[in-house]
């Protein structure tokens, strides 16, 4: 009896919590489909408007057309830039972090312990410290207003993911590598043909997290990109807000926001299992 009562209580709390979590998204959809008048009246004395009386699907193309100064071009440019940058960042991180993680886990070289300690120490350094000199350096390379400052650093690895790959590679049985070595396999081949195929879960998590990070990154593009042709969706969405900052255009802002979120929603729904397995991998660092 006690148990069932506590279960019912927990269930009620979960339902209430879920409503709180979902409500902002729901409201976003409702606003994006409303007429301007309805959007600003949907939460008013008459009570909540849970669904627009006449859903304005045309708000979506209208909003995207208005992004940037040239109709459609602004949105398409931002979309292309975001996709290209995100893809390159993901490739760079997976490549470099798995490579370095393998070195730290499985290979002996002079100063490995010191190097590993140094890597963990750099995690403590806030990015703000290196931000300004890096900007000046990239400017002297002539890289401002190109995607290079956003993409190139990804190919040098990030301590957090290197650490995750290292933890995973450390668990691979020594006999597997030993056998390959005896058969005359080089370390590059071991890495490509043995290590990468078995560390799919880590690759998946690195891909998902760096994808979401790069897709949503705001400060990087804000600092390094200047012209409208180079902009990413996150920054374009903000300039869109400033352009139409008035509450009367909330329906366009919400429609455009939903469109920028779609890839992350799809990725999350497709890769849910990996998020949960990230749970046990996350336990390593926790």
């Amino acid at each position, binding site marked *: 009896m006690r148990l069932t009562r506590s279960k019912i209580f*927990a269930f009620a709390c*979960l339902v209430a919590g*879920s409503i709180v*979590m*979902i*409500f*902002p998204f729901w*409201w*976003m959809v409702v606003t994006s489909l409303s007429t301007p008048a309805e959007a600003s009246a*949907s*939460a*008013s004395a008459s009570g909540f408007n849970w669904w627009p009386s006449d859903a304005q699907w045309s708000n979506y193309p209208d909003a995207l057309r208005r992004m940037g100064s040239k109709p459609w071009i602004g949105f398409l440019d931002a979309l292309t830039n975001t996709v290209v940058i995100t893809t390159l960042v993901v490739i760079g991180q997976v490549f*470099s972090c798995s*490579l370095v993680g*393998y*070195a730290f886990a499985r*290979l*002996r*070289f*002079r100063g490995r312990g010191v*190097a590993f300690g*140094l*890597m963990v120490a*750099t995690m*403590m350094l*806030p990015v703000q*410290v*290196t*931000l*300004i*000199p*890096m*900007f*000046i*350096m990239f400017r002297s390379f002539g890289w401002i207003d190109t995607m290079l400052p956003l993409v190139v*650093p990804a*190919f*040098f*690895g990030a301590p957090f993911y290197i650490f995750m790959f290292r933890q995973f590679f450390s668990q691979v049985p020594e006999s597997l590598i030993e056998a390959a*070595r005896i058969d005359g396999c080089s*370390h*590059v081949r071991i890495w490509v043909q043995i290590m990468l195929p078995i560390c799919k879960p880590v690759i998946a998590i690195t891909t998902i997290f760096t994808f979401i990070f790069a897709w*949503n990154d*705001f400060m990087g593009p*804000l600092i390094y990109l200047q012209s409208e042709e180079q902009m990413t969706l*996150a920054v374009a*969405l*903000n300039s869109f807000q400033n352009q139409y900052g008035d*509450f009367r255009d*909330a329906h366009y*802002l919400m429609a455009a*926001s*939903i469109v920028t*979120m779609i890839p*992350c929603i799809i990725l*999350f729904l497709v890769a849910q299992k990996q*998020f949960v397995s990230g*749970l046990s991998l996350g*336990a390593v660092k*926790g």
Partner: protein
Amino acid sequence: MNLHGTKSSSCTGGFGFAIPWVIGLVLLTLLPAAASIIMACYEWDGLSFSSGAKWVGLTNYSMLLFDDPQFKRALNNSLLYSLIGTPLSVGAALGAAVLLSKPVRGIGFFRTIFYLPHVLGGVATVMIWSWLLNPRFGPINEGLRMIYQLIDPLARLWQESGTTKWPRPGWLYSPEWCKPALILMQIWSLGGAMLIFLAALQHVPKNLGEAACLDGANRWRQFWHVTWPVLTPAILFNVVTGLVASMQSFNQAYLLYNRSQDDGLLFYVLYLYRCAFEPPYRVGYASAMAWIFFGIVFGLILLAVRSARGWVYYEGQP
């Protein structure tokens, strides 16, 4: 153990594999950090170092610490947001994780929903909240008004003064309410910390809980003596990462600053960004600010870790 040939080849090969990170460490961390220390002692607009930079020693630091009211404001804002928001959001994440660890029907679905806001965090979610919190047209104030209407008659029973006007929070537009508004957003995206707690909860020994139950321990005592000790390392981890992340928060402050009054949303990193990347480009000044920031963040981490000796339990320790 190894074959003779293997050892020597792995020596050179091993370093080769680590080369991407070594180059990154030198070019993207060590050199910029060194340059930043030097720059912090100059007054410079970031353009031509040979003609434009002027050595000022530690003046940048003393100016920041002693006569820059905006810096003080930014530091206060960030500390307030970080020190109040982090415990609240970590607490909420802990509560959510405990609920989501129960074997209830459809638990996977609930976990997905609770995690979703964290995954989608970005400019778009800031936009949602700025609309939800709109003082005139937003549903949050509308909901508060409805609650107020319900409790108002009750309140009047013992409060004679006819309070017909309810205190409508201005949220992002008000100097007092803008930080609670951001804390609400922070609590909403509790998914990341929640996931860490869920992982930690898997290590709670089941038989210990059952034994305690047989001994007649109530739920609360069971939680306090069995679950809580297992969770303490995860709490420390979430508090430290939460403090660092909220001190570093930039997006919300940048995107919503125009709405706030009285520099209410001037956060530390936003002020740093403005000094460095907006005219008159005080690059040296901003570098000094970055190092003070490093000191503060490091101090916060140290404080949390030091205090951990008193309340964090590790396995194999009484």
